């Protein structure tokens, strides 16, 4: 199926530092999402993004989080500053339409020390 890429696959940083997670969505898709999965727990929605704007966010999407996709490049999730509880696997997804099939990337495992 359609491929979503995520860079890096692993990231280890110290608490308080900034981190940027990168996502290369499916080329003709218009909607972009971030989800968070803590080990052994279910996937939780963070945010969705369309036409340069955040359309919906959950309570997990703290003030320290931000997303952007400048000029059709990577769709990014930035966390500044990071906290210990941000340690998780972050999955990017994309879809052509808002209620359409979402395709997920392989995830970025973030470890905050």
């Amino acid at each position, binding site marked *: 199926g359609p491929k979503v890429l995520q860079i890096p696959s692993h990231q280890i940083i110290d608490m308080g530092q900034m981190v940027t997670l990168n996502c290369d969505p499916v080329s003709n898709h218009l*909607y972009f999402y971030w989800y968070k999965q803590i080990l052994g727990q279910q996937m939780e929605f963070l945010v969705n993004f369309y036409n340069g704007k955040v359309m919906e966010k959950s309570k997990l999407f703290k003030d320290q989080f931000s997303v952007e996709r400048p000029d059709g490049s990577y769709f990014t999730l930035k966390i500044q500053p990071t906290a210990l509880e941000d340690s998780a696997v972050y999955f990017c997804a994309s879809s052509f339409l808002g209620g359409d099939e979402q395709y997920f990337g392989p*995830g970025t495992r973030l470890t905050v020390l």
Partner: protein
Amino acid sequence: QQQVRQSSQSLTVWEGETAILNCSYENSAFDYFPWYQQFPGEGPALLIAIRSVSDKKEDGRFTIFFNKREKNLSLHIKDSQPGDSATYFCAASGGSALGRLHFGAGTQLIVIP
């Protein structure tokens, strides 16, 4: 409150049997129900999906049975293979056009050769 529930944390079947994975949901506004398959260390892969206007969706060995009145659905995997051993997530969205997916906790399927 969990919006999507998967009744079994794990399920073990013999090769060749039909595996049945169950899912229920709370929100009557949900109208799109994808199932995702996830292998360790990978992102969730879209397996099959159904919309609430249908009560059955079949794709090869995979079939979704959907009961709108009871707010539940099940994924049937016919002729299970060891390669089907993975975690299966039921998800749901609807009520808005923005596509936010609500995930169940997942069912780990083990197929014994």
